[in-house]
């Protein structure tokens, strides 16, 4: 039996390869994920270890505040066995760009570059700062802001005063994610403290004197400082940093593995289908084996064995591909300047090998179990029947009932989820019901494929004449096979559509919110959350005749009904309206207040109630929607606010230009007015939207790319099914050729069949994706604006059809090339 199986496999190498490829890709992706994250982890660990090797002992705060009192440094220096100790400063020190404005959306970090042996920062160009007039910049910020060694740079100190430094060098932020994100300026330790205003250190690094072991030193430093601080050896520090980092990469691993699992599921469908077809095609062979004495068990075993061989081959290939993928992804990340360690060897762990092999083999064999069981049901007598006609699905009442039940359950659960309060649990309910509904589609697939085929094939059958009509009939002739083939594609398309619906809806909803929140041409705010805009800017702007309105928003913290909360106000102006969810904003006169929805709910405040703000009573006349309320808390009229909080500067300015003033002109005016205030940034509504759109586009692109794998595998499935069908219909093709069908017509016939399959898969996927995308968005927030990106969705459908046609190229070529006489003779 074993030999027969192997001989059978070897006789069909190409088919074996195609089948394996589906699993190979899935395993490759999973293995690649592990290889990538392991490599990153290993690189980080290596880097941390190398860094930490420079220090013997580190002193850290026990809490989350990362503060070690400055006075401790002298205590540490006094400990016996300490050769050297340095305090590490880390805070913010906003770099001013060449345009005179702070650089970036977030202020750059200000860090100390310790001198001597304890320096862990890698200076890549120039030198470390040695005096109070020198500073260094991280390479990336220097590049994007156009600074080179020798330039003079301006940095804001903690009092927002401009300080000038000579740029003496550039450094590499290495694997520090935070510094990589904000950019950083490095100073000598004293200068860093002065610039950032940090009174304490983030960490104190200690170097042991010759002959003192880090462990001993750690003990004596800890003894000197008491229990307020955590004292670690360098080795332990490296270990802890690496562990914390592993937690971070675990998210990456999990996220990627999710896509890997989707791909594996699709691959399992492809394998299942392939084995089903193989079993059907070999029914006579099986029957013959049964006739000559093979037991059911042996037949079952031979199919399982075959799948096992396929599983082993494809998993091993998958591991190799995974290795390549991991290395490739590292190279790409490195090239993109992502803060990952570079120049480390790709790491292939035993775990990766085990997980890859086990997943690949288990999925393959499990997918082949049902087909193997079907093979045992072939009666020996089948060997004597002349032609095994293809399976016609018995109208399967059981199937219909089960399918319908799943659909009903899925629909019911979706309705329940949608009507729940928006939030995580509602989303989970909707996703789960999506899965149930999908099972229903899976079960009903063979029943709905015929009507769908007729529907989708209507146009091709009309346009492409005989090949078209034959193709459409062929696509519907084996509903089970067609259903499984297309469902594999449906999965990918469903998820793609789902994601694009969700992003489009988010984009639209957020856009509308921005419009509400931001019904203005320019928004002026500061780079740092807790700083403000001097009131002079607002009055300067109001003096400009080109501007129609300048609304200032101010906020302060005060006791509201005895508890600390935010209190805000805004300049009354027709350009700025608040949306009331209860009551009316028009009534917001002296002595009254509007309360934001969320705050009102938490504090149980209703319209008509009285709230005590900073010792004064205000009558609540409106509840404000959270989107438009100036603060999450209580909004009171400007006059009342100013008398309660007279010194508060503006938090935000909303500026509208007069009609007829060009965008260029108004922008120029606003920017000129803001120029003297380096921390004040001007954004136009278009820019805010643009940044948001870019972020969404990027997410969409990444997810689409990751889902692409599942789609690729399902296309392999189409190619595989088609080539098996072509093989099965060799004589039919020959007959058609004899009757005068030309080679191009035969090829076209197969392409159209694939087109129809692809379109069915895509249409079902689009329907599911849009429905569940709608349901999912309903659970995410209140009053969303649903949007299905029609163009994108149509392009999914078109691309699926096209991809089907591409998948058919090889099988179609083979079919067209076969000699008529040879094919007629084949049995």
């Amino acid at each position, binding site marked *: 039996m074993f030999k027969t199986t192997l001989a059978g496999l070897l006789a069909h190498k190409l088919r074996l390869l195609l089948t394996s490829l589906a699993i190979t890709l899935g395993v490759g992706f999973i293995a690649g994920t592990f290889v990538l994250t392991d490599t990153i982890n290993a690189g980080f660990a290596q880097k941390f270890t190398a860094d930490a090797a420079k220090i013997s002992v580190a002193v850290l705060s026990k809490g989350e505040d990362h503060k070690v009192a400055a006075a401790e440094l002298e205590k540490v220096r006094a400990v016996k066995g300490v050769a050297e100790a340095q305090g590490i400063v880390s805070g913010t020190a906003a770099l001013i760009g060449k345009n005179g404005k702070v650089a970036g959306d977030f202020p750059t970090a200000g860090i100390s570059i310790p001198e001597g042996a304890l320096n862990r920062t890698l200076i890549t160009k120039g030198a470390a700062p040695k005096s109070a007039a020198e500073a260094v910049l991280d390479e990336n910020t220097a590049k994007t802001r156009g600074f080179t060694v020798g330039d003079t740079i301006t940095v804001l100190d903690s009092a927002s005063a401009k300080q000038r430094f000579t740029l003496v060098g550039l450094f590499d932020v290495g694997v520090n994610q935070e510094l990589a994100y904000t950019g950083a300026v490095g100073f000598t330790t004293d200068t860093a403290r002065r610039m950032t205003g940090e009174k304490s250190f983030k960490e104190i690094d200690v170097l042991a004197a010759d002959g003192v072991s880090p462990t001993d030193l750690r003990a004596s430093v800890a003894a000197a400082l008491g229990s307020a601080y955590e004292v670690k050896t360098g080795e332990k520090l490296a270990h802890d940093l690496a562990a914390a980092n592993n937690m971070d990469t675990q998210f990456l691993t999990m996220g990627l593995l999710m896509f890997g699992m989707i791909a594996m599921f699709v691959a399992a469908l492809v394998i299942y289908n392939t084995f089903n077809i193989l079993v059907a095609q070999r029914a006579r062979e099986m029957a013959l084996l049964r006739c000559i004495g093979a037991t059911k068990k042996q037949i079952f075993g031979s199919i399982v064995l075959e799948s096992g061989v396929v599983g082993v081959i494809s998993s091993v290939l998958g591991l190799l591909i995974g290795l390549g993928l991991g290395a490739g992804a590292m190279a790409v990340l490195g090239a993109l300047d992502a803060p990952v360690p570079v120049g480390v060897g790709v790491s292939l762990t035993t775990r990766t090998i085990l997980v890859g092999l086990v997943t690949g083999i288990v999925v393959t064999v499990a997918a082949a179990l049902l087909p193997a069981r079907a093979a045992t049901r072939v009666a020996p007598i089948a060997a004597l029947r002349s032609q095994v006609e293809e399976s016609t699905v018995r109208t399967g009442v059981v199937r219909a009932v089960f399918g319908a039940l799943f659909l009903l359950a899925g629909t019911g659960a979706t309705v329940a989820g949608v009507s729940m309060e928006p939030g995580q649990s509602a989303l989970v309910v909707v996703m789960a019901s999506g899965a149930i509904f999908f099972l229903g589609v899976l079960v009903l697939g063979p029943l709905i494929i015929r009507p769908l085929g007729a529907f989708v094939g209507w146009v091709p059958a009309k346009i492409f004449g*005989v090949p078209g009509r034959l193709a459409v009939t062929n696509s519907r002739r084996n509903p089970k096979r067609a259903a499984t083939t297309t469902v594999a594609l449906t999965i990918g398309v469903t998820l793609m559509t789902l994601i694009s619906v969700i992003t489009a809806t988010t984009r639209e909803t957020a856009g509308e919110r921005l419009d509400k929140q931001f019904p203005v041409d320019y928004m002026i705010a500061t780079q740092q959350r807790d700083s403000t805009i001097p009131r002079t800017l607002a009055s300067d702007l109001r003096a400009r005749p080109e501007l129609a309105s300048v609304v200032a928003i101010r906020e302060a913290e005060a006791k509201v009904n005895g508890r600390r909360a935010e209190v805000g106000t805004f300049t009354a102006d027709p350009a700025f309206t608040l949306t009331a969810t209860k009551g009316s904003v028009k009534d917001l006169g002296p002595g009254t207040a509007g309360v934001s929805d969320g705050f009102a709910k938490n504090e149980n405040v209703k319209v008509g109630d009285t709230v005590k703000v900073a010792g004064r009573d205000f009558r609540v006349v409106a509840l404000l929607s959270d989107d438009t309320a100036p603060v999450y808390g209580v909004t009171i009229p400007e006059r009342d606010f100013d008398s309660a909080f007279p010194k508060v500067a503006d938090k935000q300015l909303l500026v509208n230009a007069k009609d007829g003033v060009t965008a260029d002109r108004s922008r120029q005016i606003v920017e000129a007015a803001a120029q003297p205030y380096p921390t004040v940034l001007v954004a136009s509504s278009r820019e805010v939207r643009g940044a948001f759109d870019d972020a969404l586009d990027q997410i969409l692109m990444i997810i689409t790319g990751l889902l692409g794998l599942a789609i690729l595998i399902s296309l392999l499935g189409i190619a595989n099914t088609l080539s098996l069908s072509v093989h099965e219909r060799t004589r039919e093709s020959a007959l058609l050729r*004899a*009757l005068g069908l030309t080679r191009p017509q035969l090829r076209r016939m197969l392409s159209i069949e694939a087109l129809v399959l692809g379109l069915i898969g895509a249409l079902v996927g689009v329907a599911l994706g849009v429905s569940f995308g709608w349901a999912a968005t309903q659970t995410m927030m209140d009053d969303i604006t649903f949007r299905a990106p029609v163009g994108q969705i149509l392009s999914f459908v078109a691309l699926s059809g096209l991809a089907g046609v591409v998948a058919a190229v090889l099988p179609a070529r083979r079919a067209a090339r076969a000699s*008529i006489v040879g094919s*007629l003779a084949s049995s």
Partner: protein
Amino acid sequence: MTMTTDVRQAVTARGLTKVYGQGDAAVHALRGIEVGFATGAFTAIMGPSGSGKSTLMHCLAGLDTVSGGEIHIGDVEITKLTDKQLTLLRRERIGFVFQAFNLLPTLTAEQNIRLPLEIAGRQADQVLFDRVIDTVGLGDRLGHRPTQLSGGQQQRVAVARALISKPQVIFADEPTGNLDSRSGAEVLSFLRRSVRELGQTIVMVTHDPVAASYADRVIFLRDGLLVNELHQPTAQTVLDTLLKLEA
């Protein structure tokens, strides 16, 4: 030898040779066949197994390439045509009936019959269609699929399909090989009727002397050569000739 083709010959072959394989493994299936098939005649090809009957038929029908010699169908020398031209020629001028698997399982009997016309994008001649359907005697079963028809009925559908496009010649390779004698007789009389009544030209390969006796003429092959022929054969004369051949 003159190159002009006798107009009364539907198909002629001159010096036809066919070699399969190369060198030591070469099989000379046809070794120089000279033969003509008259228009409106029913010709049977007979010979021992492996004598080259199928090969000859495939070459004559343009399904296979020849190694040497030439074949004319009507006034067209098919040995010079490209694959595309051959396909179009088959579409327009040749009908086929094979031993088995003649019909597309997804189409009904009627759709199968109309298939060649549809492929060629031609309209069915309704008078001819009715007449063929009438002759084929399947009136009430036209909507059935092949699996719902008996072997004899399937073969009759195949013959009807071959007739419907009014081809210059119909080639049939053991059309009754898979049938019992009664169903075989139905198919054979149908073939003969179409020659008599519709003036169809038919070339049929067969093993069965009784089947051959339905033909106007029988030619005999042995080892790739034309060795004998009979006109107005009976089952007995065919059998005698065969026995002599095999002796």
